[in-house]
């Protein structure tokens, strides 16, 4: 099957999340799910049917949700605390800081429907700030899988990890982008294509778009290196600095604000250790207008066309 044909098949990572969690729960009775009236939206109906006692629903109460998760971990269980990302990370941010990260409670925070997943529901329901907020919290890995394979890897990694983490589960359908057999390691990016002209760093839903951009750039004779960064924290600093040294510049793309997410992390790192031409694609400090997910991604310049254009811009700048 050609790459384009593969790209045409889109998957829902939520289903992989739920299936993997159920498989893990069958192997390990310490695994429990905690939600805030979000059994359906967290895709946990199957988990509840199979493990009714291990599904804790605290009702619509996110502060309680995260605190209860920390308490379950204190009791020796491995809670997957699942809620819509905007409410989990916004409403309960102080609980994430004090009860989870500062207490090193072994809780897997699962942010569902992140980014612009909720489209027309508006900025109250968008979760574009989560990467900025959680990057600011110490001792908390921030993980954004790009496709079903990485989602399964991330869920398994999180269950085995002795500390807490935040998993941002994509809702927007995505194609497969991870070659089978790829490793999944804390703080390691995955190089998807080689290239020494320009680097495209992407996370989550932006990874397939970066690959598409690399395809179109290749047709123009520009060799783009694509890095999939699933661990926004801790960042793969070696791969980023290598890209800064070996290519003419870096485009970063994320379905999140540019104030403190992956782009900001890459910018802070390279500015101090290996200054590079950068183009940071993401959401500026602006509330989104009304529109579907697809409309909003286009509106904020988060398409393959925009990523390719930013790469060309870097190449043009480098020639001057």
């Amino acid at each position, binding site marked *: 099957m050609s790459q384009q044909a593969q790209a045409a098949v889109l998957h829902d990572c939520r289903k992989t999340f739920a299936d993997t969690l159920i498989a893990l729960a069958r192997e390990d009775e310490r695994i*429990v799910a905690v939600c805030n009236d979000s059994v359906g939206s967290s895709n946990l109906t199957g988990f509840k049917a199979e493990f009714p*006692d*291990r599904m*804790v629903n*605290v*009702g619509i*109460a996110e*502060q*309680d*949700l*995260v*605190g*209860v*998760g*920390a*308490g*379950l*971990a*204190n*009791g*020796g*269980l491995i*809670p997957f605390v699942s809620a819509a990302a905007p409410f989990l990370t916004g409403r309960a941010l*102080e*609980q994430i800081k*004090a*009860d989870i990260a*500062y*207490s*090193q*409670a072994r809780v897997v925070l699962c942010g569902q429907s992140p980014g612009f997943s909720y489209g027309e529901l508006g900025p109250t329901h968008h979760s574009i700030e989560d990467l900025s907020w959680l990057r600011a919290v110490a001792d908390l890995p921030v993980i954004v899988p790009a496709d079903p394979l990485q989602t399964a890897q991330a869920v398994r990694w999180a269950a085995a990890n002795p500390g807490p983490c935040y998993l941002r589960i994509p809702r927007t359908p995505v194609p497969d982008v991870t070659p089978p057999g790829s490793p999944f390691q804390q703080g390691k990016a995955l190089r998807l294509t080689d290239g020494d002209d320009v680097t495209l760093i992407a996370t989550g839903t932006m990874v397939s778009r970066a690959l598409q951009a690399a395809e179109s750039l290749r047709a123009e004779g520009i060799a783009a290196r694509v890095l999939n960064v699933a661990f926004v924290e801790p960042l793969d600093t070696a791969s980023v600095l290598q890209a800064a040294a070996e290519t003419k510049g870096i485009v970063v793309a994320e379905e999140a604000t540019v104030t403190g997410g992956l782009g900001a992390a890459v910018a802070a790192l390279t500015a101090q250790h290996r200054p590079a031409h950068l183009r940071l694609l993401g959401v500026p400090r602006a509330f989104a207008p009304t529109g579907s997910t697809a409309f909003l991604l286009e509106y904020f310049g988060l398409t393959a066309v925009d990523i390719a254009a930013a790469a060309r811009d870097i190449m043009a700048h480098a020639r001057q």
Partner: protein
Amino acid sequence: MLSVDHEQALRFRGERARLEGLSPGQAAPMLREIAQQLRRDDLRMIHRARLGHIGGDYSVIDILVTLYAAVLHVDPADPLAPERDRLVLSKGHTAGALYATLAYCGFFPRRELETFAEAGSPLNGHPNRVKVPGVETSTGPLGHGFPVAVGIALSARLQRSHRRTFVVLGDGELQEGSNWEAAMTAAHYGLSSLFAVVDRNRLQQGARTEETKALEPLADKWASFGWEVREVDGHDHAQLLDSFRRQGTARPVCVIAHTVKGKGVSFMEDRVEWHHKVPSDEELELALRELSA
């Protein structure tokens, strides 16, 4: 990292075993003596560090002493034993009272109290779970401990364990909405192994609770949230012990402990400024004299 003081832990186990066999009335004089000693330790810590929350420490310390010395099954030599009882101090600003109590149990040597709030000390102004053995969750921002305690009690239920969970709450803290989320969850799940102890000293940082944002009728609030309510004198060790020992029904239990902020030192009692005032050298001596009487 702090670690167990084996000698003190041995002494604690001995006292704990003796208290176990006594009635609340018989145990009370011993508990009072421990509490007065810990008040003195705490006062010296705060005086040395030039910071702390002495008022709230003194309202809560009889509750903490009763629980650790005569109720909780904890082992300072094995602070993470899976079947231990849990105590969560949600009013984390009274860390001084907690540290003095944990040192009494032998979770770490008593001399460590001298490092309270010093640069690099594990004994921060608010307790941290990672640095201080015996601390179940890091607290400080109010309204955090109760949901965590609910999660702990839920874990015990899922594991069919008989271990018990106690959460100690400040009264002013109950103005945080997260507590009422937790109260609803505990009642919904029928967590009868969970005790919420309210340190009802009627003062918060700036003024009386009832002037700031009224809590009364407090017992009715808890009852209407589905809790069994017990009201006691929070400085009467016999009443406290009785209320903690008595098993509940199918519901979680709220013990409203009526206390006095600054209890034990005449010039601190029920005075709002002693929320976090630091005693002068002269006040230290005066207070120590009263606490030794």
